[in-house]
């Protein structure tokens, strides 16, 4: 059996288990809409600032909320691995011939699928609120950026989970990285309004890459080359964190 089909089998297992948790589903649906409505009211007049580039904050916000949701989902994804580890499920898998990489890939894929569905929902709600997000091409880029963001941060999260192997440590690390990465980006506010030194630093931030790619089509003066470059960077980030996760898996196995 190929790694791909094993990945799908293990991904479906997690999705099926999650689909049985009504509260989880409710939060996954309500939370992004809550962000969208909250921020759009809170920062309604922000577009009046000179240099914002668009007159509709909702147009500006929808791609941002899609990316933020994907970023958060990905960052916390490692918790599920710790649960499997604590309950002996992982050990049971390891005594079968299943590919070790597929165990990690299945979970990364699961986080990415959930985030993409959330992004789609956000785009639909955004549409109701009047944000078109650049039509079909824009939507595809946003969904792709959300997928890559969730997968990339999920890889990082799983790597950390497999190294700390403790829920409390995992939570501490996830919290430690999430807010700084969020604020060192133009997710909530126009790039031109951020101090120049922060703008430069934000170019090292995968969240910023995702936001720039996702928002490119919605804003005036679309630069496809730049969007493509940011998507490519996100792809590299995913490759890097996936490698980190599979290596962490090997280091976990050595502790057994």
């Amino acid at each position, binding site marked *: *059996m190929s790694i791909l089909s*094993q990945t799908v*089998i293990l991904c479906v*297992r997690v999705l*099926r*288990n999650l689909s*049985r948790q009504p509260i989880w589903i409710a939060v996954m649906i309500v939370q992004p809409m809550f962000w969208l409505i909250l921020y759009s009211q809170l920062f309604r007049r922000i577009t009046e600032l000179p240099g914002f580039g668009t007159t509709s904050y909702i147009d500006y916000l929808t791609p941002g909320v899609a990316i933020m949701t994907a970023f958060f989902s990905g960052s916390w994804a490692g918790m599920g691995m710790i649960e499997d580890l604590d*309950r*002996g*499920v992982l*050990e*049971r*898998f*390891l*005594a*079968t*011939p*299943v590919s070790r990489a597929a165990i990690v890939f299945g979970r990364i894929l699961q986080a990415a699928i959930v985030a993409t569905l959330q992004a789609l929902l956000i785009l639909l709600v955004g549409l109701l609120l009047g944000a078109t997000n650049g039509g079909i091409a824009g939507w595809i880029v946003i969904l792709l950026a959300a997928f890559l963001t969730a997968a990339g941060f999920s890889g990082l999260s799983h790597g950390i989970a497999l190294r700390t192997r403790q829920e409390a440590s995992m939570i501490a690390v996830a919290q430690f990285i999430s807010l700084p990465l969020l604020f060192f980006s133009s997710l909530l506010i126009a790039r031109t309004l951020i101090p120049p030194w922060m703008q430069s630093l934000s170019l090292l931030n995968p969240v910023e890459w995702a936001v720039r790619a996702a928002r490119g089509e919605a804003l005036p003066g679309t630069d496809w080359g730049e969007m493509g470059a940011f998507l490519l960077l996100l792809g590299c980030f995913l490759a890097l964190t996936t490698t980190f996760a599979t290596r962490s898996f090997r280091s976990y196995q050595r502790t*057994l």
Partner: protein
Amino acid sequence: MDAIVVDGLEKTYGRTVRALDGIRFAVAEGEIFGLLGPNGAGKSTTVRILATLTRADAGRATVAGHDVRSEAGAVRRAIGYVPQASGVDREATGRENLVLQGRLQGMRGHDIEGRAADLLETFGLSDRANALVRTYSGGMKRRLDVAMGLVHRPGVLFLDEPTTGLDPEARAAMWEELESLAAAEQLTILLTTHYLEEADRLAHRVAIVSRGKVVVAGTPEALKRELRGDSVTVELDGAETGRAAEIARGIEGVHEVTTDGRRLHLRVAHGAQAVPMILTALDASGAGVHAVTVARPSLDDVYLHHTGRDFRADDGEVR
């Protein structure tokens, strides 16, 4: 051919915890073999090495003819592993757990469905097959664990403490199931347990493990027969066990004396004849006797005889 060969495995955790110290044994095909020992003796570590979950620092082992280190993939296909700490997915149904396990073992869809249904039937889980495992009782969960180990029809099954944590009723039911299972399927079973009774009842042969080594191996009957006579336990009123042991050693027909707290363990040729003599001698010395019990030798006595320590006391030590 031997289904399992373990040859001088060593394993140290950290720098100081010596889990295995050259353990060595072999299990014949179709045999139920029991690794018996107190908690911390190294039984689980041995099984985890054989199931390819961890590596030994030194020594060799083969399972179903495959080296556990260099042919881990082949070993994994040949074995079923039932870990001590369950490992079922609580948020999935019993059937889903079995089907997933079959898939991960590389079975095909049609084959899995049939096999899962058969196993659910065998282990009396059919009527709860589509309920989430988190609603199962401890005994049901454990039976599902064993069924999952069997789904791909392995030749070798590892059962790590299969009845620990079960109530006596569930334990008895599990024993019956394991007995009929071993008879029905062509299976080699390696069982670890710290219940002497369990090893006695299920295993064709037993290896007693203490501090990472096999102390003695054989059929339970042969091991007990080796200890001729009966075992007498004397519980003293006071703590003067040293002097009482001295006196007991002088009595005719007493082979072996060990002490443990306020208790004296004696091996005697004939229990009925020895007890009055023991009591008289102890009484004359002024040692008060609280209770005396005479028993046929058990695996408990085998453990005591070979390690010089009380099984229950060793078992408690680590917990």
